[in-house]
């Protein structure tokens, strides 16, 4: 059974949102249904994405049943990125149980610092007893390991930020829109944990996203331009201590699976645009390699030669990526939405003639877990 994205919505990404989580989720769920041209009655199943620690309440979806439209619907909650909610929703459609699914995701980062939650993700018997270890310091260790292995320098990392933050300037909902940002400004922003400066770290923020999925039974009837999910790859790596941090091994596995399912043999040539979740600047370069856009260690060449700019041969993150705003659980789902927008020709930084797009979500410390979707304009 094939599944298509038929509608979507993204909220404004902001800090210290005045709206409640329930309101934000209600708004994206409603707009996504409107965008898809369906009503709540048409929806068979609803999958939400949020996590208890980030939401600061146990069973974080308890109060979202009304807002997400899941009241008296076949419902569940993925406790990770929204793209995993979309995956579960797609699986429910593929199983033939339902025809239309709604997946919603949100995080209001102001409620509790997600970087603090990254510390709670550590194994508590050893690593968590060291108060210096958290998501940022671990990412810094990963960055240095990768950079020293492949001769990448801070300038390359800053170039990634410049590209993404400039792209974001045109995206209405983005948080960090810095059209005139320079490499120097990136490097001179506040140092957190070297080599990572403030602007190399995706800014946690408040936001929500929603997508409507439909099975092939109904997608073309409802929607003029459904965006088809052609490939799915998902993989989880070992815990930190037993991983090669200099490589995104699980992303490589996930990408390979997704490519095989979609029949893609030469990703660089066949994929028109990629929307990836880079929580830290170096992870975008690492992702180029794991996604086989270039050989291992050559990620910096892509950025140095401007190949991943909107006008380049392999545009990556024309929406600005996670560096432009990171509403944790919604970040990957926004990548999915942006990839779908590119195929529909609705993106702010539209890549010409886009027919095949890649969307990527990550979860866990140093991107332990990765999920890749390949989207296309026909089934």
């Amino acid at each position: 059974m094939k599944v298509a994205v038929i509608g979507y919505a993204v909220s404004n990404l902001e800090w210290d949102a005045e709206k409640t989580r329930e309101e934000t989720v209600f708004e994206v769920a409603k707009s996504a249904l409107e965008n898809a041209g369906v009503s709540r009655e048409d929806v068979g199943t609803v999958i939400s994405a949020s996590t208890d620690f980030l939401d600061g309440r146990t069973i974080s979806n308890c109060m979202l049943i009304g807002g997400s439209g899941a009241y008296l619907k076949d419902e569940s909650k993925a406790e990770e990125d929204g793209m995993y909610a979309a995956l579960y929703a797609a699986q429910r459609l593929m199983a033939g149980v339902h025809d239309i699914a709604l997946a919603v995701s949100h995080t209001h980062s102001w409620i509790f610092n997600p970087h603090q939650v990254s510390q709670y993700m550590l194994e508590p018997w050893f690593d968590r007893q060291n108060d210096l270890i958290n998501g940022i310091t671990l990412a810094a260790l990963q960055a240095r390991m990768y950079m020293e292995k492949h001769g990448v320098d801070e300038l390359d990392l800053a170039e990634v930020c410049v590209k993404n933050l400039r792209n974001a300037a045109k995206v209405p909902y983005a948080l960090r829109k810095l059209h005139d940002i320079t490499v120097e400004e990136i490097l001179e922003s506040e140092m957190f944990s070297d080599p990572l400066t403030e602007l190399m770290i995706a800014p946690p923020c408040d936001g929500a996203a929603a997508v409507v999925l439909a099975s092939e039974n109904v997608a073309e009837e409802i929607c003029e331009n459904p965006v088809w999910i052609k490939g799915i790859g998902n993989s989880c790596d070992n815990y930190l201590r037993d991983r090669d941090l200099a490589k995104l091994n699980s992303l490589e596995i996930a990408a390979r699976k997704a490519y095989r399912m979609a029949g893609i043999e030469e990703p660089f040539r066949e994929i028109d645009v990629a929307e990836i979740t880079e929580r830290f600047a170096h992870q975008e370069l690492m992702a180029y390699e794991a996604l086989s856009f270039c050989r291992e260690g050559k990620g910096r060449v892509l950025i140095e030669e401007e190949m991943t700019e909107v006008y380049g041969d392999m545009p990556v993150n024309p929406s600005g990526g996670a560096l432009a705003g990171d509403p944790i659980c919604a970040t990957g789902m926004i990548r999915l939405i942006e990839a779908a927008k590119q195929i529909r020709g609705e993106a702010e930084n539209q890549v010409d003639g886009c027919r095949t797009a890649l969307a990527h979500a990550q979860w866990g410390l140093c991107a332990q877990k990765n999920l890749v979707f390949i989207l296309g304009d026909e089934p």
Partner: protein
Amino acid sequence: MRNVAIIGCGQAKHGRRTDVNQAELVAEAVWAAVEDAGIAPEDIEAYAVGNMQGFGGIAQPDLVFADYIGAAGKPMQRVATGGTVGGSVAHLGYYEVASGMYDVVLAVSWEKHSDSAEPGATTGLLHVAYANLSYMMKVGMDMRSFAIMGLAGAAAGISAYQAAFYMARSGCGIEHFDMVAAKARRNAAKNKYAHLKWPNCTADDIAKTEMLIWPMRFGHVCPASDGASCVIYASEEAVKKLGVEKPVAWVKGVAAYADEEADQGEAYQGTAVVDYSDQTGAILSAMKAYERAGIKDPKKEIDVAEIYAPFPHQELMFSERLGFFDDGTAWKAVEEGVTEIDGDFPICPSGGVNATNAIGSSGMQRVVEAALQIMGKAEEHQVPKDVRNAVAHAWGGQVQFNTVMVLGDSPKR
């Protein structure tokens, strides 16, 4: 729709497990299931996992121990829906196979209460509450209202109201709760994985325990256990390919329809469900699961049920909501011994959640126990009658989520 079977089950020994850490506890159930299924770890293509993160104090604990359960390098999906989570993980694992994406999937859920420094579930509930409190303060909520709401909001508080509602509706008395709780302890004594065991426990024994919050006595309340439960799913083709010859349990229908939350309401406005014993979501979930399973008369076609009932009134209430008894009559069936292991309609022969409650594990344990009854492997608590169809149920959230899974001894045709 693809036919999917449970080919292996595993449980950790439930109870107060201070001898192991969270990863070791989960590994215990996982490797027991792999052994039970008789497959190689390489045969497992994907994982479904979940618990309530706050109780064990680790955010996304499955990422810490992916490589304790053989998941490294493989797809792993996580769900969490409160007390329902075990049921939700079971559903997720089922859908992973039913979608056609994978052929063999391992689903595991667990809870480790004893890692809390404070008693029972207190630490877990409060730990994740830190952040939300700042939210409540922002919207101007007074700490006193929080305390009142907190007391009412914890599972036992909600359940006391729910029990009272149910008593008023059905006409049952506290003595019926005593009977149900005594049955749970007695059955648990026959289950080697259970926590609170009390051979030959009688309703009078329970009636002698202290009244906590009317109408709930100490003897009615479930323990806070540590534990993990696991099942392995395979598609019909994979069952053949793997050469599984032992009896398996076929998943015939699943559904999980959510109701609005009790108690607090949307954004704490108090616009929620008033009668917590109403359980429209449970009725709908059961109806849809039966429809998908091709069950027309649950009273006749279902042979045994594992209901998620941390408190005894819930066993009565849900057995009506799931369509096993007419509204308001479950307590009469209990009086007549219908729900005993050797009764006409055995309910919770394992002792159920009332005797063993490792929250995340509990929903999955219902699925495991229902599958064991179908496979004829429940040992001492195997029901004596033929089991062709069994129901596994879980509830969670603020008594608003319900998962129902119908298992059968043959695939759906």
